[in-house]
């Protein structure tokens, strides 16, 4: 399935979680999120948890707190 992170399309296995698609997008950004220095929001601006389950076509943004 395809998920967008910061506008970039990422192909990820079905059944993946938010953490999986972040790791595939950028190891560096993933580490910042893991350290709670950044957060992940959906396209509506709501924060999502890293174990959130994904559906194809969703879009996320990595943001400063």
């Amino acid at each position, binding site marked *: *399935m395809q998920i967008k992170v910061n506008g970039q399309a990422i*192909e*990820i*296995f*079905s*059944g*993946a*979680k*938010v*953490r*999986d*698609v972040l*790791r*595939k997008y950028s*190891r560096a950004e993933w580490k910042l999120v893991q350290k709670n220095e950044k957060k992940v929001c*959906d*396209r*509506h601006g*709501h*924060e*999502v*948890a890293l*174990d*959130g*389950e*994904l*559906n*194809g*076509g*969703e879009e996320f943004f990595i943001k400063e707190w």
Partner: protein
Amino acid sequence: MRNEILSSPRIRLLLLSLLIVFAFPSCASMPPAPAEARIVIFHSNDVHGKIDNFAKVAAIIERERKNCENVYYFCAGDNFTGNPVIDQYDPPGEPVLELLNRLRLDLLCLGNHEFDFGLDNLKKFAARTRFPFVCANIQAGGDAFPQLRPSVVLETKSGVRIAVFGLIQIEAGNGLPSTHPDKVKGLLFSEPLAKAWEMKKLRAGNQVLLALTHIGYDADLLLAQQMPELDAIIGGHSHTRVDPAENVNGVLVAQAGSDNRFLGRVELLVKNGRVVAKKGGLIDLGGPLSEDAEIKAMIVRFNQNPAFDKVIAKAPLEITGKDALGSLMTDAMRQVHGLDIAFQNEGGIRLNRLPEKITLKDIYTLDPFGNQVVQFAMTAAEIRGLIRGSFAKGNEIDLQVSGISYVVRSDSAQQIKEILLRNPDGTPLAEDKKFQVGISSYVASAYNFAHADPGRSLQSTTADALIRYLQSGVDLSIYRDVQRAFWEKTAEDPRP
């Protein structure tokens, strides 16, 4: 003229009917206009076995119950999977069952992870709950799931009727919820938003219409757009922190994050038979809130799960080193899921030894990350690409393997010259065949490798596979001196 009209039998019958309707309103075909009601609905979703904050949840709900007569507690699915202490309870999920019963949950919408312990376990669980299960887009043929209902109607003390229907997500590929397909055999699933159209009929005769969903926030927004008849959607699945709840197309859309870190609270004001005001928000459970002492004691008891110290397998000797432990972990993945080949990265092996008497605690210390098994159909060339990418991360062997052995040959500058893949009998792996390969979700997402198959999670963790493998009574003596991944540094190529 006047007497003529009154003497007509049809007119006299009509007048008699009107007299009955106005004199005895309870006999009328339409219910009487209900009184005003303030309705408070607390909601949780995607608890995933994180029970510690239930003592705070209980205190908050009980306090509200003392102040308001119409207080409900809903759960939008996924109570299981995510906390080994709870997942490994005997019977599985028992702590969640006892806590939700004790908290007087009013309604549960099934989430995909409610099925993780199998349908039989879920039915046993449902038989002991004091709350109904709702989900409109599941068809359970015959006796497959007698406790499941598409919708329920709750009624306040003042006579306000609250209709609630449930919806569960399904995957685009297989049309099933995100759980192992074997876990939902015997059930039929339909597309949730299409099913919701049929639920519009619930609007008639009910003053409040709610959807309790496990379809994710994006799908909840689509539902709100297509169904303005709804007063509110209380959702789950995407673990979205919606605070305050959004008003979309006149429909309040709420979701309370995940892992019991927040408790959702929706408030509805009903006047003259319809909702005239509504709002929703989250209560952060991370702060110093008061706790229900009885619930707290239950949680302490559940967290001391004796199953964790129980010996689940005995080895003739300690299993030591990354080669042996990685071989054990990948054998488990391959055997339990019926795969051809399995890989495990060494960074995911968090112990150097397993004792002779192996407990669940040992397994979750060895493999603590909750990574899922992901299946790919891969060619030999793609498998080489995976090994090449893993080797390049640190210029050393990184992937332990089951189903094949491999040799990485490099030059003195550690540049890979070739990767040999061999079957267990030493013959070369077929180049023209696709193999079903299992790898952890960490490797699947963090390693660079080309694969034509996008892959699919088997909705089961690598630790679960190891537990099931060990519990099958496998001979653990084979993990003495085992090695399947080799690195050969060749001398400089003598050829020109």
